[in-house]
């Protein structure tokens, strides 16, 4: 699950990583980003987001940059960017495969 040895990323995982590409983000900003970006197509429950932030942090894909009360801000690491890029390449390959057949 997410990563070379764990299969493809799920949509929520992919979009959460995507949310960090341009700037550091906290949890509520990530939720808003995903809702806006996907026009509410991808829903990000608070449990899913909390678990993902913990998981990504443990795997070294993101790192905490600031704690302000309830708000914790994270940034994407080099490893996180690589995992995102890998998934993006996979999705592009899928699209190309599909388009060739259309």
């Amino acid at each position, binding site marked *: 699950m997410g990563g070379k040895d764990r299969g493809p990323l*799920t949509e929520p995982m992919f979009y959460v990583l995507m949310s960090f590409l341009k700037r550091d983000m906290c949890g509520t900003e990530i939720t808003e980003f995903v809702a806006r970006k996907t026009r509410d197509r991808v*829903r990000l429950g*608070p*449990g899913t987001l*909390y678990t993902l932030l913990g998981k990504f942090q443990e795997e070294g894909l993101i790192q905490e940059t600031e704690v302000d009360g309830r*708000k914790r801000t994270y940034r994407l690491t080099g490893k996180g960017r690589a995992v995102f890029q890998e998934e993006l390449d996979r999705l592009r390959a899928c699209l190309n495969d599909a388009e060739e057949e259309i």
Partner: protein
Amino acid sequence: MKQHTAVRFPPVSGYDIPGLERWLQRMAARGMQFSMTLGPFTLFLPAEPTSLRIHLEPARTKIAEDDPEIIGLYESAGWTHLGDFRKNFYVFATPEPDAQAHTDPQVLSYALRRFFRQKLLGGAGLALLNFLILSFFYSSRFTDPTYLRFYWAELLAGDLLPWLLALQGMGLTDLSYLLGLFSLWKFRRQIRHDLPITTPPASRLAGVLSALAVLPLVLVAAEFTFRYFTHGYFPYDLAGSGFVTMAEIEGPEFRPTGDTMYNMDYISHGDSPLTPENWYYQQWESNRVFGSGGSLADIPHLEINITRYLLPAVAERRAWEWRSWGGHEDYQALEPAHGLEEIWYYQNERNPGFCYLILRKGGLVMRVEYEGSKDLTQFLPRFAQMLDTL
């Protein structure tokens, strides 16, 4: 009318997430809102009956203090934080029936797998607790079938009862824990394979076992705490105790040994919530045999053992057990007198100076071992009086 906090046992395993969520929702609908957990108990505050959607979020680690981030995330999504469940789960509620805390089954599956592994490791802690509690009270005689069959009253004078209660409580807890792990494993499997979520029968059984374990474990904890702080040992001075002594029986010529272990100037006295109160006293004459490797049998002495059982029938059994050591036929039953309900006397044929006396009055039973020049039955009124003072 003022309503008070309600206390309940969970009807399902403490690891059965959907089962617990459904239970907390049913309680909320009945006007009892989850407040907190206290050991095996769950506390509810009175509230307006409400239809709530409850979600239990597995904590990343045992909750020492609330993680503000998770509470912030849930609150911004319209959930209210109610508290934590046994430091394992954050409990959230929302009036929205369709609200979803988890929107990615793979992520939930990951959280459950992580939680399952933590609890599996917790099993090592539980095993250690089993070992510590059981070994604290254990004696090899507790697992000797002959001893258990014939000398159970004697074992009850020791730690048999707390050990059996610990064994029962820990056994039920261990089984409940294993069934809970099974429920958790099954829930993760249902999430992972998108199967219908059901409460397994094992979860309900785990809830029952967990509740049944509480009483024996509370008793064991009380015993353990009492013994930890007091050792269950309360000796007191021989002077003024009313105990019969060798000096009293033998007269002023009696010369006690200078060894304070064999010439006690105190009464050894033990008592604790789960073990019978007991007394011990001994006094031996000064003799060269001490320390020379010779026989102690011929040294004039008095040794007193007393136990107070809650039930007279157990004391009666103990009297039987004491008699059975020397063979029943060797003891002579004397007529009950001086308020004593049983009087048993044994005199050694080859050594008439040596005798045993077993006395019982209600739940109090006493065994006296004596080697001396006097007829011990002449002191029955004094022994009866002694028992009355206990």
